[in-house]
């Protein structure tokens, strides 16, 4: 029987998560917890295990070993119940391109059984400044518009836990800035817990309360962005990232 970190009001509890794909270790041993209302950044160079960790949290991939609890329930046994209270947005997934924006949101709302769907759709489209696009075919949107529509979809069911995989990857600096501020605002107003992955360290410094630095499937640093910067004796999170990516092996990380 595994024990979980003793964190009050923890929304996500991950204990000794390990994931192998045909003998290749994607996540070696990861334990962390996320408290209600926190925005936690999961960072690391390519192949660090961020995406696999998120996929496990979304129930898309099953762990090789370890335990994952969300809202205090075992993910594997309560997958659908948990997913009802979560949502996800990634720069790497798309809404069906040949449906209109409002049609895509209507389908997404239906999947989560959203009440007052049309009012919610209108409110979110206004919030992300894409209301004028609601009758447009999704495939005709620019990548920035598409990301914002995706974010509307991700917030439709008032998720308690929102997982964002590089949500600002395809946005220009102006829109990216607006989206970061909006996410912060939504989090403050609704108390949503967010898990955020990004390669844009400015994003992370601005948005995240706490970061987990992954390298070769293990957490090598954890704390507020400032604490991590100090821990690595660097000037910014970006410098920390480069240091980890180039000399992670020297930091005592083994798989």
């Amino acid at each position: 029987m595994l024990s979980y970190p003793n964190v009050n009001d923890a929304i996500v509890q991950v204990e000794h998560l390990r994931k192998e794909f045909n003998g290749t270790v994607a996540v070696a041993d990861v334990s962390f917890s996320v408290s209600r209302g926190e925005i936690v950044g999961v960072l690391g160079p390519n192949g660090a295990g961020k995406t696999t960790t998120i996929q496990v949290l979304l129930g898309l991939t099953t762990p090789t070993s370890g335990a994952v609890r969300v809202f205090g329930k075992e993910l594997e046994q309560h997958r659908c119940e948990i997913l009802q209270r979560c949502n996800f947005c990634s720069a790497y997934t798309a809404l069906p391109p040949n449906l209109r924006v409002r049609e895509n949101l209507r389908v997404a709302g239906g999947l989560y059984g959203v009440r007052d769907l049309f009012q919610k759709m209108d409110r979110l489209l206004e919030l992300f400044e894409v209301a004028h696009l609601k009758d447009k075919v999704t495939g005709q949107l620019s990548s920035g518009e598409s990301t914002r529509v995706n974010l509307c979809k991700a917030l439709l069911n008032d998720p308690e836990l929102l997982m964002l995989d590089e949500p600002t990857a395809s946005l220009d600096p102006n829109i990216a800035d607006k989206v970061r501020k909006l996410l912060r605002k939504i989090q403050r107003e609704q108390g949503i817990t967010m898990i955020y992955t990004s390669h844009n360290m400015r994003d992370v410094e601005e948005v995240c309360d706490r970061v987990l630095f992954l390298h070769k499937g293990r957490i090598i640093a954890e704390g507020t962005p400032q604490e991590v910067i100090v821990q690595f004796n660097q000037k910014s999170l970006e410098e920390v990232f480069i240091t980890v990516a180039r000399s992670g092996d020297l930091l005592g990380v083994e798989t």
Partner: protein
Amino acid sequence: MSWHRIQALILRYTYLYARSVPRVTEIFFWPLMDLLVWGYVTLYLQRLAPPSGPANAFMFLLGAMIFWDILYRAQQGVTLSFLEDVWSRNLLNVFVAPVRVGEFVLATYIVGLFRIFVTVGVLAALAYALYSFNLFSLGMSLLPFFANLLLMGWALGMVTTALIMRWGQAAEALAWGVPFLIQPIAAVFYPLDVLPRWIQPIALGIPATHVFEGMRQVLRGEGVSPTSLMSAFVLNAVYLVAAALFFRYMFDVARRKGLLAKLGTQ
């Protein structure tokens, strides 16, 4: 099972068809081409050897062609619905939502059923208009025949989808190929006794064989054999349960190997 999720998935496929001229055309195009080719081939055969009894090759072949399309479209309804989500990189949006596997499969069944109603309706009307072949001359026996072909198509669809889920887009060709693997031994266009003796017991293990044999019996005016129909239903029940277990197993394998996420972002 939640009806609102099933409804949302059906709505998504309805929008998809309403938005896409090639998809709507595809529902009619191939069945229509089959009907024209088979229809005229059998008219020619009829000229070479005029029928001597109430039934003739023409009725058998056209009936078989329309019945085959029911099975094929049922299988395609399940498999292509899944592939639509893969092609539009929407699979992750479906499976990160609280959609249960059973709800997903049921939605694809219902979409498949709509496709079949449309296709068979058009084919039946055209067969009557072009060749004076009345599909409804099969009477009430049409219903159990239809139900059996539908069930078998769904079972095949689940197996095909499970294989695509496991082996990815490389296995896409199976979506169109799997039904044709059974066609030669399912006595679709010729009676069971034409097949070599050793293949006949295998053929009798396929529910569709009983349907096609039954259809020919009815067209010959011999009435439908309840034993044969019951065999088809029992076999279908066994195959549906086996297909559902296989689908569930492959879904779990796909999650274990991270294939679902990979398929969803390819």
